[in-house]
């Protein structure tokens, strides 16, 4: 046996290294085109976007631990994201602007909520589970808007104010709001480096998120490969048989639910750490739908899938929202006038304001034609290239019942 680094086998180590590389070099990777050039609009190198990708990557990885491994489709995961945000902002208000306690509290609180909600919801499975989680999330959302206004500040959202106590930070200096920091290093500070004719921005907040994202991903790998992960897969493939073997699936699924709730809380806490305000909108069920989309798009049950999905969706969201008719005119100016107008009209529906339309269409196409997500698509592509002219590969099984489980495939290969 080869000696394993960090308790991972060589393949997973490679995986982790890829992720570490991708996250740490995002500021460079997302800036592929020189600033003044035609293609500069494809650059996504804003600290804002990079933070979002890292944070939603964590969210999706956590969601995948529940959905990808156990097959329980939760439609209310955004509730934990929102709860995490609220908890973190309260910590910033009461204790200190240092993000560490805030994020820890966010994880603990959302973990508690997940334990309570999971305990109830997991008594049912399938569509009932989805609807129960949806109901709980909607309940949290409505309560944040109405009854819990003293805690959540209702529609305005929870914000920092100048006369918050902030016990550990001592007396308030100046008249501006303090910024979140980690042991004095402000989250919104960044360092600019000029190289190769471009300016690369290295943002403290992003690197903080990135390090946490890598840790979260590492934990997820360990979890996927552990006997516990195996149990969760057993829950997905056949609960009944699992019961016959003398194993009770309940504690395992509940643990998975709590873990994934804590991931969501962590993501929520990080969102608050980057921008210290929390609103109930984060708990809306469309937000829950978004994390489902990310996970499915990347590939549920795979390790890389959710990260990939979160990255692709957040990147495209940013880019697509930026493209307006003017940009389109530049692109298609080579076409004859009539054709140009038609093409621009079509494209304009999908860009700018129409980003949600693109999202919906992409989602439908992925679920219909590529149920395994992008990861499966890449694998098919790779195997097709390898097999040359051979048209059908082993994953083209027409019968979905016998379609191999995407999670297992990653494990086996």
């Amino acid at each position: 046996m080869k000696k394993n680094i960090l308790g991972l086998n060589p393949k997973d180590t490679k995986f982790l290294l890829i992720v570490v590389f991708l996250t740490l070099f995002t500021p460079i990777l997302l800036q592929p085109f020189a600033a003044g050039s035609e293609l500069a609009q494809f650059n996504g190198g804003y600290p804002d976007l990079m933070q979002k990708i890292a944070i939603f990557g964590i969210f999706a990885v956590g969601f995948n631990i529940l959905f990808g491994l156990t097959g329980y489709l939760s439609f209310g995961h955004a509730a934990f994201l929102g709860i995490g945000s609220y908890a973190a902002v309260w910590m910033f208000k009461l204790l200190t602007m240092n993000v560490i306690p805030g994020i820890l509290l966010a994880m603990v609180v959302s973990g508690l909520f997940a334990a309570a909600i999971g305990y109830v919801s997991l008594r049912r499975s399938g569509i009932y589970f989805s609807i129960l989680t949806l109901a709980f999330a909607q309940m949290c959302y409505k309560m944040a808007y109405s009854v819990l206004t003293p805690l959540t500040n209702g529609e305005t959202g929870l914000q920092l104010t100048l006369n918050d106590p902030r016990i550990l930070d001592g007396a308030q200096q100046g008249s501006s709001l303090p910024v979140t920091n980690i042991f004095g290093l402000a989250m919104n500070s960044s360092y600019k480096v000029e190289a190769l004719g471009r300016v690369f921005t290295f943002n403290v907040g992003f690197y903080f998120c990135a390090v946490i994202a890598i840790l979260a991903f590492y934990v997820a790998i360990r979890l996927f490969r552990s006997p516990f992960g195996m149990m969760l897969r057993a829950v997905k493939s056949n609960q009944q048989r699992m019961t016959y073997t003398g194993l009770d699936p309940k504690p395992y699924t509940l643990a998975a639910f709590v873990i994934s709730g804590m991931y969501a809380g962590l993501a929520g806490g990080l969102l608050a750490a980057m921008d210290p305000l929390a609103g109930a909108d984060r708990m809306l069920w469309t937000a829950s739908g978004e994390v489902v989309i990310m996970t499915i798009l990347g590939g549920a049950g795979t390790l890389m899938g959710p990260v990939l999905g979160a990255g692709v969706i957040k990147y495209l969201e940013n880019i697509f929202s930026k493209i307006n008719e003017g940009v389109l005119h530049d692109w298609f100016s080579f076409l004859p006038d009539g054709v140009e107008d038609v093409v621009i009209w079509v494209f304009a529906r999908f860009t700018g304001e129409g980003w949600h339309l693109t999202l919906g269409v992409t989602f439908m196409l992925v679920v219909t034609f590529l149920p395994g997500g992008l990861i499966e698509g890449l694998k098919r592509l790779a195997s097709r290239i390898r097999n040359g002219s051979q048209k059908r590969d082993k994953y083209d099984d027409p019968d979905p019942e016998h379609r191999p489980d995407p999670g297992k495939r990653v494990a086996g290969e």
Partner: protein
Amino acid sequence: METILLQLLNGLDKGSAYALIALGLTLIFGTLGVVNFAHGALFMIGAFCAVTLSRLLNLSFETVDPTRTDFLGNPLKVKTPYVEAWFGPDFGHALIDWSVPLAILFSIPIMIAVGFIMERGLIKHFYKRPHADQILVTFGLAIVLQEVIKYVYGANPISTPAPDAFKGSFDFGALLGFDPNLIIYPYWRLIYFGFAAVVIGAVFSFLQFTTFGMVVRAGMADRETVGLLGINIDRRFTLMFGLAAAVAGMAGVMYAPILSPNYHMGMDFLVLSFVVVVVGGMGSLPGAVAAGFLLGILESFASMNWIKDIIPGIDQIIIYVVAIVILLTRPRGLMGRKGVMEE
């Protein structure tokens, strides 16, 4: 006593909408076995059918009336809707006034067509896929439909008034011997309830008393055997999908005067309708209707002031609380059948 009656009445119109949407959802689920997250979008499309018809009828041309002048002294421009010019002012005006009820006739073929295209074009391919896939693809479809409507009609709610004849309120209290003006209830909501009752009755009698309905019910119970008897059950189920779409659409048309249609109304109603279906019992039509009314009425009772004083915010969450309690105590819902959606 009168407050109770009033809340009961208030709950009816919302309950009717829930019941109609939940009925369609259950119909689709019971026949095709598909969990349709796009059903709220069908409700919304129905509401926008009403908007479209009222806009079509209001299309008008301008004429200059030399006998009258506006405040600047110029000849007054008069807008005349085409319908008034074609059918005479009285009948034309009545047509415009009655655009919402007329939109029902207008919406039925549209909704059936939409349902047909949806079923044949997309949902057909998802019968054998897991429920999660069905949820996800219809969720995507719902987003797409919503965005298309948003593009065509804009993001703001469009008010679509009911006919003038139904503008007022009905003094329900006087009828029952209470003081006048104690229990008053808008006519249109009363009509909505009556309309819902008729539609629900029609759907049930269609399923109960026609041969077509009998075959469909047989197919719901055992699809395979019906197929073996040489009946093309798939085609009938497709028609049922169209019917369910039409029910949702009509519910939307009639709801337009109560709630000005906006592009996200479908999603708002969908979440609640799902809760209704689950409470009523997956696959049970009477369950869906009963739960719809039950939850609508409960919601309206919970919004009474003295109840809100005891448990603040209960009006916002009562439906979800009830759903959670029912699912945990009666896992199959109020009237759920055995063997439906059980793992």
